[in-house]
């Protein structure tokens, strides 16, 4: 099934929402494992999102301009004795997409009852 242009699948929306939640906690950038853990905690799931599914979704979000990514300075992982991280951050378009999705899923306001005046 083809998706509507510009629409997000639930996992992409969840990634964007989690990225916003991280930002609110002062974490501007995140790596794959961190977002997988946050997604698991937020949804109360038993497993972390699969490698293939997670990185494919992150790649799509970057292609859509909703995320940006950059490899960290090689000196940092060299000092910490660990592999280099690819760090993602949500863009302004990503924030707008989350806000739009929230508006679309919010219940429509009830129409005011018609009152007969005659």
């Amino acid at each position, binding site marked *: 099934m083809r998706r509507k242009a510009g629409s997000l699948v639930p996992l992409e929306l969840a990634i964007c929402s989690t990225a916003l939640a991280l930002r609110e906690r002062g974490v501007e950038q995140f*790596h794959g*494992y961190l977002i997988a853990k946050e997604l698991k905690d937020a949804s109360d799931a038993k497993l972390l999102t*699969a*490698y*293939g*599914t997670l990185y*494919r979704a992150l790649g799509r979000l970057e292609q859509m301009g909703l995320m940006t990514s950059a490899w960290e300075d090689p000196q940092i992982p060299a000092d*910490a004795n660990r*592999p280099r991280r690819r760090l993602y951050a949500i863009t302004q378009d990503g924030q707008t997409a989350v806000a739009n999705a929230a508006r679309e899923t919010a219940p429509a306001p009830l129409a005011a009852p018609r009152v007969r005046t005659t």
Partner: protein
Amino acid sequence: MSAVPNCPPCRRAKGAASVARWWTRVYTAGLPADLRDARRAEVESDLWESLADGAPSRQILARVALGLADDLTWSLTFMDHSTRATATWSIGTLFVLVLSWLWLSLAPESLTMRESMWAFPAAVTLHLVGMVLFIGMRLVLDLRLTGLAFEGMPASALMKRVGPWTLVGAIVTVVSGMALYTADSARMASNPMFQFKVAALAAALVNAWFLHVVLARRVRDWDTATEVPTTVQASAYLSLALWVSILVAGRLIEFVA
């Protein structure tokens, strides 16, 4: 990367991480270098974080297993044309061999094929028509590759032209052949000519895979040449021999107990 702790459960998790690394190397093997290296580095970083976080081996393996379909479809999206053709041919050949094996060992007897007035003759007719189409197309390509006919005709164009018709012929032949097999599957399975035919079919399929996946990669070097490389000629002669053997074995099945 010494920060990852070393204990028995961690060793199991490290084993699972090796599986994840191996799988990542497999599905990224045919990708452009920048994409391949980026994905491998990203998974490596994720694995390191998982191990440092004390993730159990089952979690790592589950993340690999649940992402297989996404890994493969992502990989196919970014593969160049020749690698995608290689992957498609390889997976297709393996799939056909496994399915054929399952079919031959599990196929039930069909009452329709035994008792219906028209089912058996219709299947025989379709089998012959499919074979004429399939082996006819194959013959054209093999004659060009052996250099016995159609000299100078671009081999790549010929492969492209005969490919779809060969596939149609193969499907008709295989489906009708499966129907014929169910008419008397127990007797057919023990018939030495039928066994020879199946073995020759498997060999022909592997030979076709070798030609289209390995040898055709350098088709530009000998596309219009009258003299094609010896390996290509050998593959074409082998193909001719196998298909003729399959035809002969098919005819002899009913004369051998």
